[in-house]
């Protein structure tokens, strides 16, 4: 070699590059203790909310000396979940909505936790319909929790300000429209608004369709047909159209996703919006909503086959978890998500921490086991419930008389995404051809359904 100096520099350079490239390999040193990463709260949650969460983590670690928890902030959204899944960065314990657990387990993405779940004292008590969302061929891949029904969240303070009685929320769609108009005219804000983007526009439209007795997908002889151009969806969209173009009572922002809408509501920009019954927790944690000003009623139902859209979350375990990690994960799911419903001491401990951290206790939910178990668990923490019961009574009293309808089963997220743009079109274009737009959605989503191999 002509110049040894050059060669040395080159060798060092190569060495540096190789070192940089190999520097990323993971270092694992098992020390007898099991460490698992667990989903904590939505990024941006309040300090108090995190304090409450960490207090529960400490209690768990105290009771399970061999398990160390590593909480990571986590929020399920379609786009971020897909990249976390592909990139292998999901925590060991995470949650997905009901709509996704079946497809995920069929794609082999969820750990089989049957053996560990069967060890739980309440394993046989689950509402089987709910457990089905994360089970296949008798095997369990996740534990459902926090089921919600669709209702209308409303701002009681704004109702009062507009001269309406917050204890008598609207019970029919016509009343919703009339109240929205009054609020909008008097207070110059949106009287009523609904989600419009990030797949939530389709989600809310589906709930509104169910409330009028329609269905987005029908199954006959094992074949799924996409039926978004049903009369009830058309009526729901026509209703939104009239609120926008006749009454002008829906404000001026028609690009609102879940977080955006909650922010809008929290800022007093809209008086009513259809939402899951569990949204109050997030409204308090993220948007500073005072539970005293919050009201919840059922979504008005009318016509045959009408019902309430219900969904929820499934606590799941990463498929890459080892047997020990799986066992630890199920213990955490049991401790954090389930024992507040099944174990009096834990239920009280959880409620105490939440109250201490100014977090809502008593947010309306549907039963995971049965109504009696839910009522019993609520009885244990009665003195800690800080969500004014009267504020959510219209929902609590109404929901049990209604039929619960699950979300569409096939290509749910794509269906919702396609419907987003129809909702946006109706709210931004006075002459939108509703039927033609819905037929377009049918065509698009039906093609996806037909292309499935299962």
């Amino acid at each position: 070699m002509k110049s040894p100096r050059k060669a040395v520099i080159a060798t060092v350079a190569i060495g540096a590059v190789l070192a940089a490239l190999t520097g990323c390999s993971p270092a694992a040193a098992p020390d007898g203790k099991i460490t698992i990463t667990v989903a904590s709260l939505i990024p941006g949650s309040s300090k108090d909310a995190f304090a409450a969460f960490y207090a529960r983590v400490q209690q768990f670690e105290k009771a399970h000396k061999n398990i160390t928890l590593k909480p990571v902030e986590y929020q399920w959204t379609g786009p971020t979940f897909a990249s976390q899944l592909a990139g292998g960065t999901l925590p060991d314990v995470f949650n997905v909505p009901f709509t996704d657990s079946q497809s995920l387990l069929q794609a082999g993405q969820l750990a089989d936790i049957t053996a560990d779940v069967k060890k739980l004292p309440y394993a046989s008590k689950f509402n089987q319909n709910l457990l089905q969302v994360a089970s296949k061929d008798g095997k369990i891949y996740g534990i459902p929790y926090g089921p919600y029904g669709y209702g209308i969240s409303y701002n009681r303070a704004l109702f009062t300000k507009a001269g309406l009685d917050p204890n008598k929320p609207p019970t029919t769609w016509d009343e919703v429209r009339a109240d929205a108009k009054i609020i909008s005219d008097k207070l110059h804000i949106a009287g009523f608004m609904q989600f419009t983007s990030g797949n939530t526009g389709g989600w809310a439209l589906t709930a509104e369709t169910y409330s009028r007795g329609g269905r987005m997908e029908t199954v006959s002889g094992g074949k799924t047909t996409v039926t978004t151009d049903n009369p009830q969806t058309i009526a729901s969209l026509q209703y939104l159209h009239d609120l926008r173009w006749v009454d002008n009572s829906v404000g001026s922002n028609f690009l609102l996703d879940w977080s955006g809408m909650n922010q809008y509501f929290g800022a007093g920009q809209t008086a009513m919006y259809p939402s899951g019954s569990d949204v109050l927790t997030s409204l308090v944690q993220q948007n500073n909503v005072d539970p005293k000003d919050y009201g919840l009623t059922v979504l008005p139902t009318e016509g045959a086959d009408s019902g309430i859209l219900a969904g929820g979350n499934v606590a799941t375990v990463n498929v890459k978890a080892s047997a020990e990690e799986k066992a630890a994960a199920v213990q955490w799911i049991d401790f954090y998500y389930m024992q507040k419903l099944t174990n009096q001491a834990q239920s009280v401990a959880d409620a105490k921490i939440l109250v201490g951290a100014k977090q809502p206790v008593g947010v309306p939910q549907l039963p995971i086991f049965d109504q009696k178990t839910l009522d019993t668990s609520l009885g244990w923490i009665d003195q800690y419930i800080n969500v004014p019961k009267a504020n959510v009574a219209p929902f609590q009293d109404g929901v049990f008389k209604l039929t619960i309808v699950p979300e569409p089963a096939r290509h749910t997220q794509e269906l919702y995404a396609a419907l987003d743009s129809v909702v946006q079109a109706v709210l931004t274009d006075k002459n939108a051809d509703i039927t033609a737009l819905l037929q377009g959605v049918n065509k698009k989503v039906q093609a996806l359904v037909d292309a499935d191999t299962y």
Partner: protein
Amino acid sequence: MSSTVSSATRAPVRDRRTPLTWLKGGGLTNLLFMVPLLVIFGVFSWTPIVQAVVMSVQHTNLVTTPEFVGFANFVHVFNDPTFYTAVQNTGYFALLALVFGFPAPLIAAVLMSEVRRAKGLFSALAYLPVVVPPVVAVLLWKFFYDASPHGVFNTILSWVGIPPQPWIQSATTAMPSLVLEATWAAAGGTIIIYLAALTSVAPELYDAAEVDGAGIWRKIWHVTLPQLRPILLVTLILQIIGTSQVFLEPFLITGGGPANSTITILQLIYSYAFQNSLGGNYGEATALSLLLAAFLAVLSFVYFRATKAWSDN
């Protein structure tokens, strides 16, 4: 004659290159020097490109075993009605950006070069939007575009008696609103390039033009623009490529709405890959990415061939 002989005798020596002569000639050192670059470029640039090509003919969610599907992904893309909407929207964005966004920095640069005082201040002001982090700028504009009568822009319009505009809340005005923000955000960089180029225009040319009786407009038309031509040609193709890949503004401001009126090709690629939380369409996403890359490569090639003569002059 002697030179012929010497070249004839030297030629075979040159042809007889052996690994040893290559080594003695410093070939290994050269190669070693190139290795870091080759490795970095190979790992971080070419590997993803090759992987994208492979993925475009597969059905994969990046987790389960990929399945070879031939050109099915490309067929799906062409059968998707949203694809044509996205192409149309991207073309519309590029056109608006060309008509309004391309001349704006040029005019600003020419005017600024004429300014005698506080040139630095104007340059700093022009460049400021480039310094603001894009996401921050976009979110600020989203706030300004509030369609209620109390929105920032609508309040300003009300001062001169113009009624509130829907801005991003209407399919008609959403795209021009995005172009306005994008032009504001990107103009600073281009202005600096033009300003630098303007300093290289020989002052004698202006003097000569002045002697010939040319006014300011004739000087700009006959001296400034021809002198800037090579730069203008490059910035034009860069702008076309940039606008064809627009993503940030529609993604953050409108999310492609209302009713897909601002969905662009890159955003469609994103939604193929990530909209379904189960990530089933990475194949279609890469297929569309390759189509866009191929289109832009052909466009650039044709553009440079077509403008070669013009540029050389």
